[in-house]
């Protein structure tokens, strides 16, 4: 990418990102929905799993990552529902801004929403399941951030395409879930390793695998995105 093209790309990403953040800051709709949804999830997990403290610690990774999966797919769906409301997405695609900039901005928004919702959900889960996550805060946050990035990088291009193909909205999470299986496995195992609930204690290996997945998903999405949306 030449320097002026890169600058134009970066500017378009920034413009769309700032617009989305402004809309979000004003309506607070998506973040509020996600936070509330996260809270409901936390209660469901608490009702379903609470046992003795050892068991609670064992189910924590699973609960966290199931939460990430649900919150993430809800967020991906929401960011596009807003674009479709008055068909503003059409105006975006009508503009000369590069399509890949659209993807990058939307992926960043989705990442931010998922990460934000998880930042609320994680302490709530810890509270309800009576587990103390404070000694593990940083590694857990890093793992969850890598997972949220992977989810955004896989879910966002699929959501853009689903809007274009006018696919029913229910199909989107269904298609996304199998594709993010590696994120789930690595995330859950990594968390378990960190919390010391599995024989394996190599957190770094799982984080590396998450990172590798994120990189591969990112490269794949951006390489293919232009040919996916090009008419």
């Amino acid at each position, binding site marked *: 990418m030449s320097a002026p093209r890169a600058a134009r790309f970066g500017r378009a990403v920034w413009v769309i990102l700032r617009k989305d953040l402004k809309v979000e800051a004003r309506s607070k709709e998506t973040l509020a929905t996600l936070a509330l949804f996260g809270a409901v999830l936390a209660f469901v997990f608490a009702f379903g799993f609470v046992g003795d403290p050892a068991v609670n610690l064992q189910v924590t990774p699973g609960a966290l990552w199931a939460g990430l999966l649900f919150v993430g797919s809800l967020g991906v769906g929401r960011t596009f529902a807003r674009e479709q409301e008055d068909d503003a997405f059409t105006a975006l695609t009508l503009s000369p801004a590069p399509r890949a900039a659209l993807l990058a901005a939307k992926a960043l928004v989705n990442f931010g929403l998922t990460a934000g919702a998880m930042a609320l959900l994680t302490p709530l889960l810890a509270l309800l399941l009576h587990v103390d996550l404070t000694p593990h805060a940083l590694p857990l946050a890093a793992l969850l951030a890598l997972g949220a990035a992977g989810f955004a990088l896989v879910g966002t*291009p699929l959501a853009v395409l689903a809007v274009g193909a006018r696919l029913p909205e229910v199909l989107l999470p269904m298609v996304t879930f199998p*594709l993010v299986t*590696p994120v789930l496995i690595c995330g859950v195992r990594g968390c378990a390793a960190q919390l010391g609930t599995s024989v394996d204690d190599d957190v770094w290996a799982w984080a590396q695998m998450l990172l590798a997945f994120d990189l591969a998903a990112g490269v794949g999405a951006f390489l293919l995105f232009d040919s996916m949306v090009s008419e």
Partner: protein
Amino acid sequence: MAAAGLFWAHWLAFVYVPMEGTMRAAQRIFYFHLPSAWLCYVGFLLCAGASLLYLLKQQSRHDALALAAAEVGLAFGVIVLTTGPLWARAAWGVWWRWEPRLTTMAVLFLIFACYWLIRSFGGDSAPVRKFGAALAVLGAPNIFFVHVAVTRWRGDHPNNIQLEPSMRVALYSTLLVFMVVFGLLVRLRYRVHLEERAAAALSRRLSRLGA
């Protein structure tokens, strides 16, 4: 010929090979399970490859091939996922185990089941074809990650199995027969899709002349 081949393969698997010591009759499933699993992978890989070609060149025939390969791959996947648990029940005492190959196969099957679902119910427009192609292209390398992840997690699938000569004959024969059946089915479905599209194009031309 393929029918005769199938008959021969069944005869080999059920009559020709000797009873295996520990697994008894359940071992015979293996002659169908393993070739089906390989061909299922071949089908999905073919679908991903053809989808990539379609994304790059936008030619209808690549998409038709991708769809045909996914359909046949799924058919073999159904064989794998039914014979697998039957064998697992006899060998391990449980129907399912979360070990690398089972999980990889299940996830791969799910991805291409989604592909097939979207292609069946999403209509046949260019954006839907592209969505399917993107799913196949992103889904196939995904499997590498699933496999690596589950391998780190756990693993006890039979590996490096020692086979008696007669068993080897039976395995390679069934594999060969299944490969022929696979090729025929993909070619058949590919042609059906091409014919359907040709018919659609023809009726378009007719409506264009007659409107």
